[in-house]
């Protein structure tokens, strides 16, 4: 008896460190696997979002112009994006002969797309779903803030948004085409100019939120979304968002009637599709960030958001979709601006306006604590 007990206790003791080893390994795998699954879901989600954004835009633009839009592939043309994807993949590209640098020419669209995807990493989609049971299986807490509390969220967004410019500039530069070069130059000047009022508009939001973390910014808006407190900043942000994503009426980098397609003139097939994807995913990111910074993200209105985490996520998506609809609406309504007016508008109107807005906000926040 005695020996047996000793044997088993020995075995238990021998088993223990081994178990913690496997436990550690499991933790380690979980620490890597969960972010991996999250990022795959995020990338696929953004791709589906991109595909159906193109569909929705074509449908909406058609309706604005009393046309039908895509309606052949599938019901309501819903399979059109799939057909477009296959077309892009199987399309021949024969423009290697002329480019300045093959390497830069090929990786430029990739840089654009990677930067566009990366920007979404810090946008909180929804609150944390507390752990629940499905078929007797305990599901752990699922945090729907994808990268929950990165305390430099806004700075990260800015840094990544700046990277996206490189793709366009390098693409236009390496194409060995005058249109592309001019398109790339315009893009550089336009994107860097509109970054300034955008940054200042966000600074006035930061004065209210007292944090760079997007989650904290959303939580601050449970009572009142910042668009009510900062209507000017919201407007400036939206206008700059249009300019930063090269959307009409600020689509000077790709003006069809003077630069053919701007930086993308020499791109075709999948490479053009990748640029196109980057542009639309940037649009989704700008809309999601607008929803987060100004429209209260998943938090407002609180009485709806508190019902269930999934309703909160729904709120976030509805707001993002609303901003995207605004993008399409503006495209369908406004003509393109002239380049000198574009720069004048930014430097002589938006930038001073953002400065004044910031100064007024600072004074008001100092006078009214809380």
């Amino acid at each position: 008896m005695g020996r047996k007990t000793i044997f088993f206790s020995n075995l238990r003791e021998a088993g223990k460190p081994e178990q913690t080893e496997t436990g550690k390994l499991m933790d380690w795998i979980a620490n890597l696997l969960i972010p991996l699954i999250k990022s795959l879901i995020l990338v696929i989600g953004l791709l589906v979002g991109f595909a159906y954004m193109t569909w929705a835009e074509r449908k909406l633009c058609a309706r604005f112009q009393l046309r039908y839009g895509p309606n052949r592939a599938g019901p309501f043309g819903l399979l059109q994006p799939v057909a477009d994807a296959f077309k892009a993949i199987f399309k021949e590209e024969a423009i290697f002969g002329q480019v300045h640098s093959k390497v830069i020419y090929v990786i430029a669209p990739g840089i654009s797309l990677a930067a566009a995807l990366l920007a979404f990493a810090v946008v909180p989609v929804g609150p944390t779903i507390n752990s629940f049971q499905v078929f007797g299986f305990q599901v752990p807490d699922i945090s729907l803030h994808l990268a929950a509390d990165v305390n430099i969220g806004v700075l990260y967004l800015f840094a990544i948004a700046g990277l996206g410019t490189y793709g366009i500039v390098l693409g236009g530069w390496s194409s060995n085409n005058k249109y592309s070069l001019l398109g790339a130059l315009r893009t550089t000047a336009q994107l860097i100019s509109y970054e300034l009022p955008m940054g200042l508009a966000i600074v006035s939001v930061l004065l209210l939120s007292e944090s760079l973390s997007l989650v904290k910014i959303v939580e601050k808006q449970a009572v009142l979304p910042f668009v009510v407190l900062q209507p000017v900043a919201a407007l400036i942000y939206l206008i700059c968002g249009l300019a930063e994503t090269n959307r009409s009426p600020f689509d000077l980098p790709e003006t069809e009637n003077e630069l053919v397609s701007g930086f993308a003139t020499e791109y075709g097939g999948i490479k053009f599709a990748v640029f196109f994807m980057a542009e639309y995913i940037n649009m989704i990111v700008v809309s999601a960030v607008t929803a987060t910074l100004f429209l209260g993200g998943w938090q407002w209105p609180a009485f709806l958001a508190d019902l269930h985490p999934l309703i909160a996520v729904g709120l976030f998506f509805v707001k993002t979709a609303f901003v995207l609809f605004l993008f399409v609406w503006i495209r369908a309504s406004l003509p393109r601006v002239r380049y000198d007016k574009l720069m004048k508008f930014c430097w002589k109107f938006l930038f001073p306006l953002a400065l004044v807005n910031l100064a007024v906000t600072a004074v008001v926040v100092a006078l009214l604590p809380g």
Partner: protein
Amino acid sequence: MLSDYTFIGIFVVVAIAFPIIALALAFFVRPKKPDAVKSSTYECGLETIGETWVQFRVQYYVYALVFVVFDIETVFLYPWAVAYNKLGLFALVEMFIFLAILVGGLIYAWRKGALEWV
């Protein structure tokens, strides 16, 4: 906090891998029938004349210079805005002095015509 950066790190890898996969996939499946006309520079059907790297307006460069100044200003404003409520009146006055200097710079650039598109 650390796991959030793990997520971003892994997301960086996935986000870089995705365009590579897309470009590589198309590289393997698309038809390749190059010829001299296809691979010439597109200029609406005309033969291209001269160098691609044409002279361009110096204005693009001036905008870039002005941008650098004010972008750094904006970055300096971020920590100020986040810590604003803890710093009190001192921060307000100091930031107004900082902004005033930069607004002076903006007015100077404006008067000198650096913001004109001539």
